């Protein structure tokens, strides 16, 4: 139970309101003012499409945030208060919207594709979560994961001690080298706790690729965790703390580049938001692992044996649609020589797997998420490729869960692991 949720209702609602107001920037205000309530965004949302329940219409998930805006900050807010057309947002209203803000939005941004006004609903949901956190209205499992990320450096218990033990085991088991805590390196490599705890093969693959290209690299036990559950939960301070650890570690080892792991939201958190939470441009480049691999392909440093199979690639939303890096994995796949069978909706238009935005961490959202996952299954079955790959461990986790739940005969793989398996001697 969080400190925030122990306070009286009106106090929590007031805390939410205060946080909401802080988030009513010009972008947010213009977007909220421009909405014509056409409802087209529903057609882009996997949760609406899989349930046909209108409450899952993306813009509807923001209703308390919009209420707060119209009452406090909108151009006609003084008139709205005078005439009583906008009531104050109550704690019960916020409580009833918690499911829509956390369980039913992966912040994939597909709704923005269809919005005739170009409203960035995913960004608004991210802002609305700040107020929800302040009111103690974060689903407990997501909040607990975020708190562990803040206090233990990992949402899944991959503390520095666990990381070291894990790496020692992998080094022994797989005959790899992992330079830990070097005082200086060109590349600081970061990890996702999901990889550390569930997909250690990705760590092995990473070490093999970096050894193959002769990179000067290190992992820092002071800043290795790239996922940012502070951001996903809506705690601005935790988001900054988590990002600052990686930034400080990169500066300490004088890294020219920080390579992010196969994780979607980690890319958004550091590549696009890192400098903003840091308060200054970052003194190093930030690359998602798929971009890093593509750059190695481009420079000729990465030599791969062809993989003569067909493959479908699942685009992690935060890397492709919201991150602008949808070409990078395709460049790597071309270098692998696979027959790429694109899904019906791919790259910027790709459907979300349903587990992003912290949704996969919310147990009570399982049924909703697994229902939405059917969209992905149908697309993949239609493509009929021999292999599947993605570059997000969180997506992979969602696929593994979906595969198990639906007794599906397809398994999601990792782009990085695929590359590591095809390295030329």
């Amino acid at each position, binding site marked *: 139970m969080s400190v925030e949720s122990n306070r009286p209702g009106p106090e929590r609602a007031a805390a939410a309101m205060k946080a909401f107001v802080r988030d009513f920037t010009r972008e947010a205000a213009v977007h909220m*003012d421009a909405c014509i309530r056409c409802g087209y965004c529903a057609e882009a949302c996997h949760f609406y499409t899989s349930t046909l329940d*209108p409450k899952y219409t993306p813009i509807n998930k923001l209703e308390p945030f919009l209420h707060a805006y119209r009452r406090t900050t909108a151009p006609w807010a003084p008139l709205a208060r005078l005439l009583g057309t906008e009531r104050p947002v109550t704690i019960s209203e916020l409580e009833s919207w918690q499911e829509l803000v956390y369980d039913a939005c992966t912040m994939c941004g597909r709704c923005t594709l269809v919005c005739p006004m170009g409203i960035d609903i995913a960004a608004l949901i991210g802002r609305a979560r700040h107020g929800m956190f302040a009111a103690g209205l974060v689903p407990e499992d997501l909040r607990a994961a975020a708190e562990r990320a803040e206090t233990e450096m990992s949402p899944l218990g991959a503390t520095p001690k666990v990381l070291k033990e894990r790496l020692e085991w992998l080094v022994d088991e797989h005959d790899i080298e992992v330079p830990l805590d070097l005082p200086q390196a060109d590349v600081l490599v970061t990890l996702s706790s999901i990889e550390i705890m569930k997909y250690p093969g990705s760590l092995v693959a990473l070490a093999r690729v970096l050894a193959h290209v002769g990179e000067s690299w290190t992992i820092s036990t002071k800043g290795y965790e790239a996922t940012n559950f502070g951001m996903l939960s809506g705690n601005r301070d935790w988001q900054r703390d988590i990002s600052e650890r990686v930034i400080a570690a990169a500066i300490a080892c004088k890294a020219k580049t920080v390579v992010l792991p196969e994780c979607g939201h980690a890319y958004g958190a550091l590549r696009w938001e890192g400098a903003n939470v840091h308060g200054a441009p970052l003194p190093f480049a930030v690359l998602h692992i798929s971009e890093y691999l593509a750059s190695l392909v481009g420079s000729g440093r990465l030599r791969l044996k062809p993989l003569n199979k067909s493959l479908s690639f699942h685009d992690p939303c935060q890397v492709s649609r919201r991150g602008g890096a949808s070409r990078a994995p395709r460049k790597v796949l071309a270098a692998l020589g696979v027959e790429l069978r694109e899904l019906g909706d791919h790259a910027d238009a790709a459907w979300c797997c349903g587990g992003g935005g912290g949704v996969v961490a919310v147990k009570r959202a399982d049924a909703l998420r697994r229902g939405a996952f059917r969209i992905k299954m149908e697309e993949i079955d239609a493509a009929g490729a021999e292999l599947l790959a993605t570059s997000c461990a969180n997506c992979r986790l969602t696929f593994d869960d979906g595969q198990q739940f639906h007794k599906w005969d397809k398994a999601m793989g990792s782009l990085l692991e695929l590359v590591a398996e095809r390295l030329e001697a």
Partner: protein
Amino acid sequence: MTLLELARGPALTVALTVFVAGTLWRIVRLASRPAPRDLSVPRVDAAVTGALHGIVRRFWPHPRFGAKIGFSVFIGYLYHIGLAVIVFAYLPHIAFIRKLIGIGWPALPAPVTYFAGGVTMFALIIALMLRLTDPVKRLLSRFDDYFSWIVVFLPVATGMAAFDTATGFSHGYIAVHLLTVELLLVWFPFGKLMHAGLAFWSRGITGAKYARRGALP
């Protein structure tokens, strides 16, 4: 003072004042919200072209959604174009605008604009039916949506009623028509009709934001 004198005199002055002052107020209030600078290093330095692309691209649905929302978009286009023809290509309206701001242009034949009026009314009725019957639209709809519909529909309906093919314009109808236009002008800054301008701003912001990331959502 007759109803027509009221509509052409003080009511018009009040309506135009509210329209101009209200629109400016809303724009200034939005512009005065904080706009923190994005400190991330852009992938592509293309904010301006991205904004323009974002504005233009959203004039038609993204190809992935054409089948799902195409009809609704088509109906929207019908009444938007119809309204533009009525307002900007009908001779009495051009004369009215010339009197207000001193600028005029050639008009389309009256039957064409009359036809446009009919199409606009038809499309507006379909749009209202869609709003009332579609569960998503119905859930999202607020007072603003219905009132905005009324203040757009009324001037078209009264304008068409004002034109008597046998005897020319009826002064009584003209007065009512003018008053409905003035109601539209007064409501414009307060509700969703402002999307006529905000659409460009909103699309431009997103276009610029994602262009610097190298993405095109």
